[in-house]
């Protein structure tokens, strides 16, 4: 069994400007002290900072790469997901990288940030990207 910790910057509103901004630098000491296999982190928005911050410090753990924004309607472009994953490959091996959205699609039942049809499209975008990535790096 794997264990992981998920951290993001808020997922209750589609107004991106009310959600927090900042990279993971200040959390690195806390992350390093956590005995978990994987960090499941938001990275689909520029608010989350660069992959390098966590990559250089915690490349020995797994990364749950947040690669689609759960708060938008449009299906995320698989090419963008692939590019982000390839950037992560500078710090992690292919088997250490998982692909996931930045957060849930409905953390608060009566304040879900998306609808099912868009959520499905976003899952498909990740699956398409993963197939290509496995072909390139498998």
């Amino acid at each position, binding site marked *: *069994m794997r264990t992981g910790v998920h*951290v993001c910057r808020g997922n*209750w509103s589609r107004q991106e400007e009310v959600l927090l901004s900042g990279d993971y630098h200040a959390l690195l000491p806390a992350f390093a002290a956590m005995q978990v296999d994987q960090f499941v982190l938001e990275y689909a928005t520029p608010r989350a900072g660069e992959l390098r911050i966590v990559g250089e410090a915690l490349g020995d753990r797994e990364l749950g790469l947040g690669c689609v924004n759960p708060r938008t309607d449009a299906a995320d472009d698989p090419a963008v997901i692939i590019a982000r994953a390839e950037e992560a490959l500078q710090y992690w091996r292919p088997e250490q990288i998982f692909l996931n959205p930045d957060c849930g699609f409905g953390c608060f*039942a009566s*304040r879900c940030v998306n609808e099912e049809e868009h959520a499905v499209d976003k899952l498909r975008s990740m699956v398409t990207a993963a197939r290509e990535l496995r072909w390139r790096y498998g």
Partner: protein
Amino acid sequence: MFTVTQVGSWPRSRDLLRALRDKQQGRLGRAEFEAVADQEVRRCVQLQVEAGVDLVVDGEHRRDNFYSFVTDKLDGTRLMSLAEMLDTVEDKAAFEEMLATLDVPASAIRNPTCTGKLARREPLAVGELRFVQQLTDKPVKVTLPGPYLLTRSMWVSAYSQVGYRDKTELGDDVVRILREELTELRDQGAAFVQFDEPVLTEIVMSEDCDRRTFM
């Protein structure tokens, strides 16, 4: 490699939201609510399998939110709306202003307030895991609120001091409960257990980390 999965929650349908509201207002029994949620989880898992997701989740359909749901499972807790909690906040105006500025609807977000000594009446997520395992052979990810988020949100001095001296003492019990849960989830065959700690960013990125937020 490049395992595709989710962080946990799925959009709720109108049927589910109606059932959840009815359950919370005492108009719908637990078995009836679970029957509605079962249907939603079935569809959610099927959609993930069809999309080609490798590691599936149940979509948190049985949960009011990703941490408040513990009130369904733990003695010594009570589900409270933010509006209800407002009565215990010292600086009401500042709290209301924070909710408005951050676009947080006080009526939609509920808190698992600690109102006494905690005891696990039933597992937090083992039931969710078992149900998904009946639906698919795919490995299953289970999400749990992390110990920091849970302790921080549960502690509302006016209520929680009935059971605990302070937040630290409550935290010890929260950790014990989560450890027990983790062990049971492992024994039941969970592939992945994810602890959610979204408030950690609040601590390092907001100007006032001791400020009472809505989580």
